C-alpha cells in the first residue's frame, strides 16, 4: 500500500519537472551559500589552529622585554639560574615583494616543532649539523620554496607541509644574521619542565615580563568578528534561499491537494500521508543539499583566496588559500538543508494535515487573508522593537547582529502591509479600467509574491547597506591614507648604525627626516604598539584626529601626553583626559584619539623623548622623508645604490598607498560577492513565485482576455506588474538599507574592527542597483510573460468550461 501511495505522490514530480527543478535549486542555493561561508570559516580557523600548533605558539608562558629585544646575555643569565627557557628571534622578512614572517628558534632547546619533525621524517632527513651551523637551513612550506630558492643569498631550503605558507622557520643563529640582529632575542618561551628550585624572575631579569598564553596575540580571537560577519551573510543567503523552498513546496502541495483528497477518500490516513510527505521532503532536501554542497565547495574554493588575502592583510593571520573537504562540513550542510527544507515546508504541511476531507481543490484558500497580513505586520514591528531593545540593553557584537537581524526580518514581515498600502494608494489615482485592474490584480497577487518580495527586500537592503558601508569606508580610508602617508619616501635601514648614516647623509638634502620608532608593550586589552615621533608640522597639520583635548600636539610633543588610536580608545574606553597606563609605574594623559584603519591592534604615540624614557633600547631603522615629490623617485634610487639597500627598503608614498588600497579592496571582495549572489537568489525567488502563481493566474486573466485584451497586452502587463512590485520593494529597501548601513558603520564595525566611520551616501549606486533590480524582476517575469504570449486560447477557454 505504501508503495502505491509513494508512487502516486512521486508521479506528481514527473509531470511538474520545472517545479521539481525549482525546489531542488532553491534547496541547493540555500545550502550552497551557507556551506560556502561555513567552509571558508572552518578553513580559516583550521589554519590558525594549525599555525599555532606548528609553531608551538600559545601553549607556554613567555618572557618579553617591554622595552624591546632581550639581549643574549639575559638568556644566559636565566639559563645559569636554572630557568629552562628557549630563545626565539622573529621579525618580518621581505622576499620578492612578499612580507614573510621569519621565526628563528633555538633548535637545541625549543620544544619539538611539528615542522621540524616533519622534515626529519622525510625520506632524506636534514643533518642537524647543517641546521645548527652556518649557513644553516630554512624550513618553509612547499608553496614558498620556489620563491626563496630564487634568492641567491639565502641558506639552502628544506620544505615541510607542517608550516603556514608565510613563515620561514630556522635556527636562531641563522635568523639573527638574516634579520641583522646579532645577539637579540624577541621572546623567551618558558619550557614546561623546570627544576625543583628556581630563583624568582625579579632577581635575575627584573625587566622581563612573564606573559601567559592567554594574553599573547590570538589570531582566532582577533578574526572572530570577521568570521561572525561572514556567518551573518551566509545566514542571510540561506534565509533568502528558503523563501524559494517555501514557495515551491507550498505550490506542490496545493497542486497535489486533489490527489491527496482522493487518497484520503480511498482510506489512507492523514498521519500516514504526512509521514510519507515528510520522508519525501527529506529525500528532496538531501538531494538538493548534496547539490548545494558541490556548489558550496566550488564557491568557497573561488572565494577563499580573497578571504585568505584579507585575513593576512588585515590581521596577519596565516590562512592558506586552499580548500580541503571535511566530512563534518558535508554533514552539517546536509543537516542544514534538511532542517531548512522542513522549516520552509512546515507551514504547508501543517495546513495539509488540518485540511478537511471535502475541501475544494481551489488554490484561493492557499492565499493568506488580510487579517494575516495585519498579524505579520505586528510581528514585524515587534521584531524591530525587540532588536533595538536587545541592542540597547546588552550592546556588543552579538547584540549588534541581533539588532540587524531584528531590523531585517521585522522589515521583511512589514513589507506586505506596506506594499499593500502603497498599492491601494496608487490604485486610487488609476483612471482607466485596465490600470484599475492592474493595481487591483497586483494587490491580489501580493500574498503569493510577498515571500519572494521579502527576499528581494532583504537582498536589496543588504546590498545598499553593505555597499554604503564599503564605499564610506573606501572614501574615509583613502582620505585617511592621504593624511597618514605624508612623507614622500619611506626608508628602512638594516640596523641602527646604517640608520644613522642614512639620516646624516640625507639631512642636508631633504625638508625633514621623521624617524619611525616603535616598541611592543602589553596592555590589558592586548598588545600595544607605542610609537615615538619628532615634532614636525606635518603631524600637526595632517594627523587624522577624531577626538582631541586643547593643545593636543603641544602637550604630546612636550612629553606630557599621549595620542592613542581609535581601536584602543574604544576597546579600553579611554578618551582625551583619561590616563593611559603603560606599566604599573608609568602613565600619561591622553590628549587625542586618531583614526587608524586596517590595524587590529592598539597603538599609541608619544614624543621621541618619552619613547626613549619608556623603552630606551628601541632601534632607529625606519624613516619617513619629506622632500620635493618630484625628486623622490631619483632619491629612492640613489639611496638604494649608495647604501646598498634592497628595493623594498626604500618605498615611495605612491607605492605604499597602492599597496594599502589593494589590501583594502580585497577585504570586501567576499562581502560583495555574497551580496551579488544574494540578489541573484532573490531574483530567482521572484521567478519561482511567479511560476508558482501561474496556475492561479489563468482564472484571473481569462475573463480579462475574453473581454477584449489580447495576449500581447496581457503579457506586457505581466512584465509591468513584476517590475512595479520590484520597484516598490526597492523604494522600501532604500531606507532599510541606509539604516542597515548606519548600524554596520556605527555598531558592527566598532565592535568588530574597533573603528567608527562617517557615513557617506552614494545615490548613483542606488540608481544602478534599482536598474539592476528592475532588470532582475523583468527577467524573472519574462518566462511567465512568454508563456502568456504563447498560451493557446483554448487553454484560456477551458477556464470557463463546465468542469471542475
Amino acid at each position, binding site marked *: 500500500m505504501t508503495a502505491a501511495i509513494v508512487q502516486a505522490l512521486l508521479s506528481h514530480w514527473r509531470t511538474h519537472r520545472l517545479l521539481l527543478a525549482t525546489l531542488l535549486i532553491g534547496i541547493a542555493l540555500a545550502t550552497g551559500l551557507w556551506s560556502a561561508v561555513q567552509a571558508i570559516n572552518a578553513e580559516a580557523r583550521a589554519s590558525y589552529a594549525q599555525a599555532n600548533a606548528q609553531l608551538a605558539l600559545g601553549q607556554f608562558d613567555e618572557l618579553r622585554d617591554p622595552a624591546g629585544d632581550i639581549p643574549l646575555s639575559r638568556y644566559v643569565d636565566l639559563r645559569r639560574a636554572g630557568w629552562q627557557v628557549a630563545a626565539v628571534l622573529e621579525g618580518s622578512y621581505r622576499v620578492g615583494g612578499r612580507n614573510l614572517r621569519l621565526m628563528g628558534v633555538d633548535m637545541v632547546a625549543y620544544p619539538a616543532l611539528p615542522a621540524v619533525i616533519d622534515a626529519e621524517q622525510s625520506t632524506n632527513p636534514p643533518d642537524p649539523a647543517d641546521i645548527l651551523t652556518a649557513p644553516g637551513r630554512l624550513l618553509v612550506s612547499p608553496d614558498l620554496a620556489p620563491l626563496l630558492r630564487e634568492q641567491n643569498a639565502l641558506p639552502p631550503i628544506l620544505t615541510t607541509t607542517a608550516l603556514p605558507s608565510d613563515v620561514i622557520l630556522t635556527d636562531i643563529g641563522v635568523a639573527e644574521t638574516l634579520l641583522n640582529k646579532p645577539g637579540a632575542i624577541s621572546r623567551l618561551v618558558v619550557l614546561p619542565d623546570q627544576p625543583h628550585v628556581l630563583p624568582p624572575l625579579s632577581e635575575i631579569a627584573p625587566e622581563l615580563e612573564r606573559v601567559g598564553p592567554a594574553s599573547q596575540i590570538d589570531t582566532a580571537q582577533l578574526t572572530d568578528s570577521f568570521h561572525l560577519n561572514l556567518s551573518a551573510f551566509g545566514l542571510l543567503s540561506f534565509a533568502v534561499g528558503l523563501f524559494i523552498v517555501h514557495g515551491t513546496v507550498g505550490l506542490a502541495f496545493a497542486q497535489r491537494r486533489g490527489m491527496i483528497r482522493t487518497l484520503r477518500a480511498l482510506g489512507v490516513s492523514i498521519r500516514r500521508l504526512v509521514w510519507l510527505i515528510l520522508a519525501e521532503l527529506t529525500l528532496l532536501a538531501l538531494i538538493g543539499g548534496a547539490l548545494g554542497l558541490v556548489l558550496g565547495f566550488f564557491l568557497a574554493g573561488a572565494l577563499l583566496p580573497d578571504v585568505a588575502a584579507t585575513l593576512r592583510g588585515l590581521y596577519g593571520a596565516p590562512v592558506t588559500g586552499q580548500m580541503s573537504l571535511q566530512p563534518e562540513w558535508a554533514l552539517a550542510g546536509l543537516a542544514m538543508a534538511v532542517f531548512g527544507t522542513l522549516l520552509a515546508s512546515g507551514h504547508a504541511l501543517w495546513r495539509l494535515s488540518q485540511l478537511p476531507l471535502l475541501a475544494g481543490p481551489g488554490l484561493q484558500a492557499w492565499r493568506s487573508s488580510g487579517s494575516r497580513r495585519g498579524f505579520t505586520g505586528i510581528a514585524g514591528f515587534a521584531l524591530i522593537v525587540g532588536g533595538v531593545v536587545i541592542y540597547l540593553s546588552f550592546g556588543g557584537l552579538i547584540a549588534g547582529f541581533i539588532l540587524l537581524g531584528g531590523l531585517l526580518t521585522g522589515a521583511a514581515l512589514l513589507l506586505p502591509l506596506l506594499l499593500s498600502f502603497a498599492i491601494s494608494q496608487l490604485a486610487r489615482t488609476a483612471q482607466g479600467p485596465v490600470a484599475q485592474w492592474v493595481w487591483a490584480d497586483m494587490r491580489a497577487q501580493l500574498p503569493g509574491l510577498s515571500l519572494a518580495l521579502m527576499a528581494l527586500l532583504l537582498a536589496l537592503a543588504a546590498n545598499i547597506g553593505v555597499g554604503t558601508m564599503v564605499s564610506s569606508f573606501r572614501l574615509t580610508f583613502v582620505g585617511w591614507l592621504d593624511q597618514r602617508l605624508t612623507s614622500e619616501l619611506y626608508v628602512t635601514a638594516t640596523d641602527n648604525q646604517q640608520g644613522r648614516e642614512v639620516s646624516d647623509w640625507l639631512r642636508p638634502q631633504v625638508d625633514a627626516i621623521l624617524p619611525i620608532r616603535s616598541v611592543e608593550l602589553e596592555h590589558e586589552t592586548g598588545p600595544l604598539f607605542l610609537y615615538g615621533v619628532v615634532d614636525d608640522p606635518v603631524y600637526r597639520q595632517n594627523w587624522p584626529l577624531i577626538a582631541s583635548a586643547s593643545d593636543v600636539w603641544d602637550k604630546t610633543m612636550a612629553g606630557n601626553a599621549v595620542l592613542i588610536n581609535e581601536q584602543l580608545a574604544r576597546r579600553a574606553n579611554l578618551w582625551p583626559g583619561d590616563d593611559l597606563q603603560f606599566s604599573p609605574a608609568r602613565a600619561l594623559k591622553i590628549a587625542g584619539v586618531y583614526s587608524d584603519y586596517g590595524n587590529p591592534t592598539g597603538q599609541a604615540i608619544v614624543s621621541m623623548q618619552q619613547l626613549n624614557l619608556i623603552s630606551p633600547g628601541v632601534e632607529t631603522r625606519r624613516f619617513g622623508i619629506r622632500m620635493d615629490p618630484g625628486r623622490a623617485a631619483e632619491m629612492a634610487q640613489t639611496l638604494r645604490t649608495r647604501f646598498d639597500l634592497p628595493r623594498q627598503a626604500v618605498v615611495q608614498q605612491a607605492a605604499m598607498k597602492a599597496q594599502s588600497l589593494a589590501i583594502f579592496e580585497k577585504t570586501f571582495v567576499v562581502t560583495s560577492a555574497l551580496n551579488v549572489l544574494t540578489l541573484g537568489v532573490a531574483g530567482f525567488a521572484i521567478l519561482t513565485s511567479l511560476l508558482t502563481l501561474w496556475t492561479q493566474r489563468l482564472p484571473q486573466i481569462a475573463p480579462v482576455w475574453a473581454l477584449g485584451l489580447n495576449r500581447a497586452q496581457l503579457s506586457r502587463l505581466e512584465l509591468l506588474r513584476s517590475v512595479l512590485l520590484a520597484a516598490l520593494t526597492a523604494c522600501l529597501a532604500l531606507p532599510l538599507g541606509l539604516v542597515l548601513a548606519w548600524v554596520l558603520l556605527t555598531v558592527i564595525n566598532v565592535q568588530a574592527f574597533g573603528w567608527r566611520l562617517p557615513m557617506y551616501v552614494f545615490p548613483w549606486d542606488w540608481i544602478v542597483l534599482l536598474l539592476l533590480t528592475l532588470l532582475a524582476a523583468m527577467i524573472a517575469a519574462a518566462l511567465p510573460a512568454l508563456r502568456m504570449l504563447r498560451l493557446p486560447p483554448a487553454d484560456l*477557454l477551458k477556464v470557463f468550461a463546465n468542469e471542475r
Partner: protein
Amino acid sequence: MLLSIDKVQKSYPGGRPVLRDVSLTLDHGQTLALTGESGSGKSTLLHLAAALDSFDGGEITLDGTPLSPLDDAGRAVLRRRSVSLVFQQFNLIPSLTVDQNLSFHARLAGNYDPTWGSHLAERLGLSDLLGSFPETLSGGQQQRVAIGRAMAARPKLLLADEPTGNLDETASANVLDLMLSLVVDTGAALLLVTHSQEIAARLDRRVHLAGGHIQ
C-alpha cells in the same frame, strides 16, 4: 445581418473535427437557442462567434466584419466592442469589486454610462453588493453580475454559454428571466447555449447541433 456563420469548420489539435460544416445567421434583436448533446461543440461554436478562437474553414461575419482575416489583437478589439459574453463560471475578475466588474467591459469598450450602470445594478438586485469581491458572492449572484457586466456595454450581441448551468432551479429561473428581459429591453440579439428544452422554448428560434452539423 448581425452574425453570419457560413460553413465553418473547426477541429482541435490531435482530435477529430468538432464542427464539420456549420452555417447559421442571427439578426439584430433576435434570440436563438443552441442545443445539442454534451460534447457536440456548442461551446466551441459560441467561442468562434465571440472571436475568442480561430477556425479552420468557412467564414464568420460579426456586425459586418469577417473574422478570418483578423489576428489576435484584431479579434480582441472586436470582442471589446461588439460582443458581450456570459459563461457558466469564472466570468468575473476576482481582484475587482462587483462595481468594478460591472463597469469593466463598458469602460473598456468606451461606452460606459453610469446611470445605466446603476439602473442595471438595481434591476439585478446587486445594489447592496457593489463593494464586495466576487469570491464572497453566491453562484446566482455571480452570474447576475456577469449578466450586468455584459449588458452594461449595451451590446448588439450577447453570447451566453449555459449561464445557469451551475445554479439550482429557482436561481436559474430568476437569472434567466432577468437576462431575457434585459435583452428584450435593450434590443440586443442573443445566442444562448442551453441543455434545457423549456429555456430553448422561450427564445425566438432554436437550432440543434449534432455530428458537427446544424440539424
